[in-house]
């Protein structure tokens, strides 16, 4: 009786796993399938859309390479992401170091406060930010989007970099200072190089956040000629394009995210369990 029961739960568990895998993979499969679809597999004239294209082709990707709007948007996305990484790391890393090394009263409250800035709803802050940015000519500009994105990512940088600095023994700073290095020198020349792999993870995190961020980018770029890739997707959507074009752009947008997510998965897990994932 007990054995039979065990087998029963095992079957239910197996079905659960399979259903879950199918649900998780379905949209991803659809994305890749459509991006490889030829015209006849998308515009079927009433027949059901095939689960695999009749004539798989990479012509959509060839098309993207010669599509000016796409190439410009990809470049803008990259510029915004790199600029956000620069701003977020330059501001966030020293702060994280100070929060870990200087144990003055209230420092943990300050750390919690800075990290929980990310809980402030982005959709609430977007209108005031655009209104303020309008005055400084930051709307419809790469710098404006990068500033908004670094505002979102600095709390994450502080969180990740604090974890990195906590693993570096205090003796390292102390010895450098005994040997006559200034605090600035020992931070920039000794601590930061040691922390570099962890900081690289923080940089990737900022990249991911900026690369697929939609709300700020959309509000800041909606009526201009500049677009990041997510904004381009939305702008294209309003001219009811063929689905395989949408899917091809989606693939190009997703691939860096998929690769980098698995690179920083370890950090994401600790982040997620601490509630630090968006």
């Amino acid at each position, binding site marked *: 009786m007990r054995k039979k029961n065990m087998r029963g739960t095992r079957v239910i568990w197996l079905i659960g796993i399979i259903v879950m895998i199918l649900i998780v993979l379905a949209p991803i499969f659809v994305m890749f399938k459509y991006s490889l679809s030829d015209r006849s597999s998308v515009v079927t004239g009433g027949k059901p859309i095939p689960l695999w294209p009749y004539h798989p082709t990479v012509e959509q990707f060839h098309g993207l390479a010669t599509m000016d709007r796409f190439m410009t948007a990809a470049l803008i996305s990259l510029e915004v992401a790199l600029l956000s990484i620069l701003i977020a790391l330059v501001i966030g890393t020293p702060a994280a170091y100070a929060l870990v090394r200087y144990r003055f009263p209230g420092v943990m409250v300050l750390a919690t406060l800075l990290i929980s800035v990310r809980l402030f709803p982005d959709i609430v802050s977007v209108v005031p930010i655009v209104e303020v940015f309008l005055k400084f000519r930051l709307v419809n500009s790469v710098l404006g989007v990068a500033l908004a994105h670094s505002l979102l990512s600095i709390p994450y940088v502080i969180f990740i970099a604090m974890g990195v600095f906590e693993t570096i023994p205090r003796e390292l700073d102390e010895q450098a200072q005994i040997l006559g290095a200034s605090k600035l020198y020992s931070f920039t020349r000794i601590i930061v190089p040691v922390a570099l792999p962890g900081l690289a993870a923080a940089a990737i995190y900022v990249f991911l956040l900026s690369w697929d961020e939609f709300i700020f980018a959309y509000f800041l770029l909606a009526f201009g000629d500049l677009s990041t890739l997510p904004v381009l997707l939305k702008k294209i959507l309003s001219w009811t394009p063929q689905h395989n074009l949408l899917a091809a752009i*989606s693939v190009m947008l997703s691939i860096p995210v998929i690769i980098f997510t698995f690179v920083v998965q370890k950090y994401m897990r600790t982040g997620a369990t601490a509630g630090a994932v968006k």
Partner: protein
Amino acid sequence: MTRIIPFIRRNLFGIIILTPAVLYLVGFLLIILFKVVGLAFTQVSPDGSLFPTAVHFIELSQNPEFKAAFTRTIWFVLVGTPMELIVGMIAAFLVVREFKGRGIIRSVFILPLAIPAIVTAIMLYIMFDFPGGHINDILMGRHSFFPFQLIAEPVNWRGSGFFALMVSMVGKVWRDMPISMLIILAGLQSISKDQYEAATTMGANTFQTFMKITLPLLTPAMATVLVLRSIEVWKEFIFPFILAGSYPLLATLIERAYHEWRDPHEASAIALILLGLIILSTIIIFYVLKWLRKQLVKV
């Protein structure tokens, strides 16, 4: 005073390198708060000057579009938040036991996190297309692998508020599933095996151990998921924006007020209302969970 100067001198370097981040984050936050409150409570008079007023909130309370968005948002949160928790729990319970290939399955379950939200929304847009999307094809039994006709006519998913918001919710829950799963998983793994063994030796069955051990000890993790996810569901923008354009929630109504009505004052008023609702609901959830935990642990 005499104690402050040596304190500053001792920590000078730390204070200096901490300042930019504090200024940046707190400064931005203060600017945002001042601006959003300032916009929401002022109006431009005909001669171009600003005057303080609460007229936007009064106007909104009489605006049928706002009322509809308000009701939709309440439903979206009431259904969406538990969905996020339940799906995350199912996923976590599926992968918590030891089995061959668990690492791979877990990596697959984390995949939604690696798909940008806007891409997920576009994929649902394609899958739930009308009349010829995949979901309609499958439900109408037009594929040989699933020859059951569940519906006679294709459903116009984006043409009805109910379906459009359901599809948005599917997207939201799909994309957030890994986060809820990881938090629940961490909670499950922190429960020691001894407690289960003790319960089993004393003759408890699976249901009893679940109700008396797993669930009470899992409440902190569940509380984390509920609080964080409810905030996320309240402010969800991308999925309803792409998939339920004609049926705005409060978050998407902000966009409409700003871009279509061209009224930053009205948009800010909606944003403030949304912010108030988020804070209120977080407090309520917090206290309800505290009470619930007491009830569960008392037994």
